């Protein structure tokens, strides 16, 4: 079970802690596409909710935008325009950090082993662990162990998707497992949601075929696509599509 602190942090990503407004869902940032190096964490998809809000407030001040006058939709659009948000592994790391700080009194950012090509990279990894932990690092056998039977899933486990159709990796965090429903949360971008629909989102996997693997179950996730944009086509669950297309789909648990 996730701790109260970890749940609160998820809540903060789902509704960013702006002082004046609630319900601003944290957008998704693809840090690889931004090609930013050595930047502020909030600008490369690795920031905490507080850092994201601080960066939004600073950007608003710089660009003369009165955040207080924006509604949650406009605030989200402003964040996206300014490349402020979170990406999938950054999101999972911060939640798991809260979780392990509480249950093991351990800072996972100091414990996770990040491969380094040279001494310089080693130093960088020590100084900026959150920025250098990606899906591959988390799925590394040194850092996590594979859960062979999904029935052993528990909150805090990760669903790892390596080499999906979009040539990228993805990570999903399990928040609850009741026996017939697996609940999860992740930072994702569905192509059907266009420029402004993406972000942190929850979903669930309904166990409809207990004897089969995860892909045979029913994946349910809300879409934020504008129906008009899709010409009333049926919206595809892209998380499930990615899971189906991933070369490797694993459930893993941190070895900490």
């Amino acid at each position, binding site marked *: 079970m996730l701790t109260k602190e970890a749940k609160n942090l998820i809540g903060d990503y789902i509704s960013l802690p702006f002082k004046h407004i609630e319900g601003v869902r944290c957008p998704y940032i693809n840090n690889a596409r931004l090609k930013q190096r*050595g*930047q*502020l*964490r909030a600008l*490369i998809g*690795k920031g905490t909710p507080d*850092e994201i809000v*601080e960066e939004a407030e*600073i950007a608003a*001040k*710089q*660009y*003369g*935008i009165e955040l207080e006058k924006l509604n949650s939709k406009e605030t989200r659009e402003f964040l996206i325009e300014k490349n402020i948000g979170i990406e999938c592994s950054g999101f999972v790391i911060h939640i798991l950090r809260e979780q392990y700080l509480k249950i093991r009194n351990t800072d996972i950012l100091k414990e996770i082993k990040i491969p380094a090509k040279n001494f310089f990279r080693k130093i960088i990894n020590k*100084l*900026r662990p*959150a*920025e250098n932990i990606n899906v591959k690092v988390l799925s590394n056998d040194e850092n996590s162990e594979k859960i062979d039977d999904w029935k052993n899933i528990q909150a805090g486990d990760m669903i790892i998707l390596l080499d999906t159709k979009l040539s990228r990796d993805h990570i999903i965090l399990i928040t609850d497992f009741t026996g017939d429903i697996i609940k999860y949360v992740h930072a994702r971008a569905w192509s059907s949601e266009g420029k402004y629909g993406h972000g942190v989102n929850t979903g669930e996997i309904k166990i409809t075929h207990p004897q089969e693997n995860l892909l045979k179950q029913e994946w349910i996730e809300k879409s934020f696509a504008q129906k008009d944009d899709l010409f009333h086509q049926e919206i595809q669950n892209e998380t499930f599509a990615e899971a189906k297309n991933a070369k490797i789909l694993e459930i893993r648990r941190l070895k900490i």
Partner: protein
Amino acid sequence: MTEINTIIETCEPFSLELLRQAFLFAIFATIGAFLWAPLLTKILYKYKVTRRSEFDFTLHGERRKKAGTPIMGGLLIIITVTVITLLFNWHREYTFVPIGAMVVAALLGAADDLLNIFGKKRRIKKLSHIFKLSKIHKNWYMRLWYKFTIPWAAFRRFVGMFGSHPGKGILVHEKLFFQAIAGAIVAWWIYFKLGTHWHSIWIPFDGQIHIGWLIIPIVMLFVMFTANAVNFADGLDGLAGGSLIASFLGLALISWAEGRPAFTLLNATVVGTLLAYTYFNVKPARFQMGDVGSLGLGALLAVNAIAINKTLLIPILGFIFYIEIFSVIIQVIGKRLFGKRIFKMAPIHHHFEFRGWSEEKIVMRFWIINAFFVIVGVWMALY
């Protein structure tokens, strides 16, 4: 003129006659600068040497009101000080080096100011692109050229982290390069041409130590650092000008107390022109200093302190400028190494702006803080 020369040759510490002359220079400089300030404003408007929102990416929000304000108002100080010094206080062994350094730094600043307004957007190759070109360019001589320029590109990449650049004008690494050349010329002149009394450095409360050639890198470092520090502080109306008044007043007092007439009069002249400049520069500014003024006056502040052998007092006499530049350095370190902001924004005056302080409050408090440290610096110099 004859009277001033007599003073310079026969001056004692705390000379009343020198003090009278210093006041006279300050009054004369203030009036002179006041008189031609409207002309300068008119020229700057006529040739559209103004801040324009379409070229200046910092002009957002509240700062949008600053669009249309003439820049290069620092010319008022640079030209007035140069002319008065050339006419009434010109001494090859004393005022030549400070004025020369100021003019060189000001020319660099002027080029940057003008290119920022009238220059074309510059296309800058990424370091990775240069690496690639050094391997795959079709011409062997171009491959060689790219290989040869990799260190320069790496230097540009590194120092580029410390400045923001709108895409026009002189880049940070180029500025540093030219400043280093200016600093080197000053250092060379000091070391080789001005006699051995310039080869030692004063240590607060401890007297002099001979440092020989080491004076060259020290001079270069302080000239470059101080010039850029003043440049960073020139971000709010009246901030750099008002703070510089206290700093140069401190230098004038120390020079007077030590019986160094040429520098007393030079610093008094700068104080006078700064009074006139700041009168026009307080919010809402009639014109802004621009790099021409901030780089020139920063270099002059450093050289004037070095010239009276008070090099180590520069960070105290120019306290607020050093706080400004260190806030930028700390911010870059925090951002690049830890991915976090140490200050909400840098230079530090923007941090306070973000915290809700009014521009006037920041400027006046910074003036007061700087004035206090100038008092401390003058007190230290008297030991």
